[in-house]
C-alpha cells in the first residue's frame, strides 16, 4: 500500500490532537507503521495549527508536504483554504463550517474571505458539515471534532467497527458512548 497522508488543521485549542491520536491508534491497530507530527507551544495559542498523520508499510518523514495529502480535515474554514494546496489532485477535504476570525480580521486590518467552501468545491472533493450544530443536537458541543472525524472516516478505508474500537480505547471511559454516537452521526452524514 502507498503511504496514506492525512492532515488535520484548525485553530489552537480546537482539539486537533485528540483526533490525530484516534487516527494514529487506528493505523497501528491495522498493523501499519505510523508517524504523527504535532504543534505545541507558542503557535498553539489561538494560532493556525496543523497535525500530520502518515501510515503505510514504512513511513520516513513525519510531515505531509504540498500536493501529497489524501484527506484534509479542517476544523475551521479559513484553515481549509490555507492548506488546500497540500491536497493531491483527487484528494478530499472535510470542512467544518465554522468561522473563527483571526486577529487581523478582528481589528479590521484584513477581511475574512467569502465563499470559501463554494470556491474549494470547484477544485476539490469537498464534504462540509456544521459540526457544532450537530454536536449541540447530541447535547455535548465538545464532541464536534469526533463528528468531523466520522465524516472523514468515509475516505480512509478502515471499517466502521475498527473506528469504534479505537475510539473506545482512546477517549476517557465516561465519554465513550457520546463519542461513539458522535462518530456514527458523522459517518452517516454524507454516506
Amino acid at each position, binding site marked *: 500500500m502507498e503511504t496514506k497522508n492525512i492532515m488535520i488543521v484548525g485553530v489552537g485549542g480546537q482539539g486537533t490532537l485528540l483526533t490525530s491520536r484516534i487516527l494514529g491508534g487506528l493505523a497501528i491497530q491495522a498493523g501499519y507503521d505510523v508517524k504523527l507530527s504535532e504543534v*505545541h507551544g507558542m503557535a498553539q495559542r*489561538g494560532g493556525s495549527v496543523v497535525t500530520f498523520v502518515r501510515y503505510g508499510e514504512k513511513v520516513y*518523514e513525519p510531515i505531509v508536504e504540498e*500536493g501529497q495529502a489524501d484527506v484534509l480535515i479542517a476544523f475551521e474554514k479559513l484553515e481549509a483554504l*490555507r492548506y488546500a494546496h497540500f491536497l493531491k489532485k483527487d484528494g478530499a477535504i472535510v470542512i467544518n463550517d465554522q468561522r473563527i476570525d483571526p486577529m487581523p480580521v478582528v481589528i479590521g486590518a*484584513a477581511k475574512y474571505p467569502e465563499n470559501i467552501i463554494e470556491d474549494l468545491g470547484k477544485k476539490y472533493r469537498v464534504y462540509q458539515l456544521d459540526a457544532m450544530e450537530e454536536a449541540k443536537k447530541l447535547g455535548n458541543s465538545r464532541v464536534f471534532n469526533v463528528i468531523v472525524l466520522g465524516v472523514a472516516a468515509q475516505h480512509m478505508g478502515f471499517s466502521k467497527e475498527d473506528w469504534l474500537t479505537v475510539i473506545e480505547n482512546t477517549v476517557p471511559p465516561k465519554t465513550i458512548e457520546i463519542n461513539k454516537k458522535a462518530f456514527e452521526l458523522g459517518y452517516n452524514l454524507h454516506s
Partner: protein
Amino acid sequence: MSEKVIMLGNEAFARGAYEAGCKVSAAYPGTPSTEISENIVKYDEIYSEWSPNEKVALEVAIGASISGVRALASMKHVGLNVAADPLFTVSYSGVNGGLVIIVADDPGLYSSQNEQDTRAVARAAKIPVLEPSDSSEAKEFVKFAYELSEKYDTPVIIRTTTRLSHSQGMVELNDRMEIEDKTYVRDIAKYVMMPGNAKGRHLVVESRELALMKDGCDFPINQVEYKDKKIGVITSGIPYQYVKEALPEASVLKLGMVNPLPRKLIEEFASKVETLYIVEELDPIIEEQVKSWGIQAVGKEILTVQGEYSANLLRKAIKGENPFISSAVSVVNRPPILCPGCPHRSVFSVLNRLKIHAAGDIGCYTLGAVAPLSVIDTTICMGASISTLHGMEKAKGKDYIKNWVAVIGDSTFMHTGINSLINMVYNKSTGTVMILDNSTTGMTGHQDHAATGKTLKGDSTYSIDMEALCRAIGVSNVYVVNAFDTDKLETVIKEATQMDEIAVIIAKAPCALLDKAPVTKQYRILDEVCKRCGMCMKPGCPAITKKEDGSIHINDTMCNGCGLCESLCKFNAIEEVKLK
C-alpha cells in the same frame, strides 16, 4: 516479545532515560523540550524536578553524576546558553555516573527567539553529540549515550529538534536496566577545576576527542547504506527521513554521532560516491569540517541555513525536480494570540491606554507586542526585561524611563529575573518592574515553579512569596494588584513610574487555562444600548467580533467571563450572564 507503542519523541527520550537506569533528572520547561520531564515524572524510579533555570538544572545533574548515578538534564537550545557555564567545565571534569544532556533545537522558530544550532555550542565545549532521527532512536540513543558517557568519561549531548520531539512514532519497550551506583572516590585533580587541575584535564579532553573521532567509525549508530553510488548523502537526525523520501536510490551515510565526526568513515564513504551531498538543517557544521579535510561536497551552496527541511526541498535542490503543487492561495495570517480571559490582556490594555513602553521578556506575554495591544518594545531572552530597562535608565537618565516599565512573568522572574532586580537595587535604579503573576509557566503548558507551591511530582512545597522576596532584595515600593482591576492598575502604574524610586508591581490573576473549573458567567452585548464605539474591542479579545453591519458580538463558545470588556464599556452595554 516486547511491547510496541506509539510515542512522542520527547516521551521516547524519557523512556530511554528510564530504561537506561537514570536516577536523577532536572530541567526548566521550554518548547520543544518540556514533555521530556513531563514524561519522566511518570517513572517513580527517577527523581525529577523543575529547577528554576537550566544552569541550576545542569548543576543538579552534574552533582548526581559525581555522586555516582546516571543523571539527565534537558532543555531547549537557548536554555543551553544559560547552562553554558557549567557545560563548558563539566566537559573537563568529566563524570562518574553517566551524564546526558538533551537539548532541543527549533529550526523554523515555532516557539523560540532564535534559530541557533546546539552542535556549534557542543563543538566549542568539546562534548560528543548524538542525533536520533525518530522516536525509536530517541529511546535507544539515550541508552547508548549513557554507555558513551561512562566509557569516555564525558557528558554527552543528545540533540533533538522540534520535528523529532513533537512527532510520534513506533517504539519497542524494554525493561529498565539495573545499573549499580558507581562508588564516589574523592578525586580533587578531576573534580576541582582550578587552573592547575584544569590544565591537566584539558589534555584529557583533547585526547578524548581524538579517541571518539576514531572509535566513532565503528559505532553502530553511524550507518552506511550503499545503493546507487552516483549520489552519496551524509546526513543525520530528521533530515535523514527527508533524504530517504526524496532520494530513495542514493547511498547514505547516516551519522548518529555528529560531534566529533568519524573522519575515516566519512573519508571512505566520500571516496566511493560520485557526488557527495551534505544534508543538515541549520548551520554547516558537518559540511565545514568535511570540506576542511579536502573532501569535495555540496551543501549550503544549494541548501538553506534557515528553517526546516522537507523532502520536496531536497527534490528541488538536489534533483532539480518540480513536484506537483497547486499554488497556495494567499490567505490572511492567523498569528498566535492571548487567550480569551488572559490576565495579561488586562494589564496590557492599561499600558496601551497610558502609552507606556515595555521592556519585555519570554512568555505568553511576549504576544503583547502584537496588534492591537502593541505595548512590548523589546524581547531578548529570559530575564532581560529588567536589566534592559536598567541599561536604558543609566544611558539616558531617570526621566527617560518615566514612561517605561519592565514586564516579566512569574516563572521567568524565578528563572533569571531575580538577579536583574538585585542589580537595579544595588545600582540605584528608579525603574518600574511589573511581574505578571499568573501562578504558572504558561506558554509551555502549565508547569509549576518555585512560587507555585507544587513540585514537578505534584507534591506540596514551600511557595516563595514574591512580594516578600522583592522587599528582601531592597525594593520598598511593592504593589500587589488584581490583574483584572484596571482602575487600580492605572493608578498604581502612574504612581510607580512617576516616583524617583524603584518599584515592583505584582499583577496577580491565574492563567485563564489553568483552572479547568467550568465557566460560571459570561458577558453579552446589548445591541440596543451599544454605541458601537469599539472600546471593548481595543484589547483584542478573540471572543469579541464585529459583524458586517457594524454590530458587536461576544462569542459564547469562547468567552470565559473575565469581565475586562465590561469594565471598558462607558455605556453599560455589556451585561453579565450567569451560567448554571
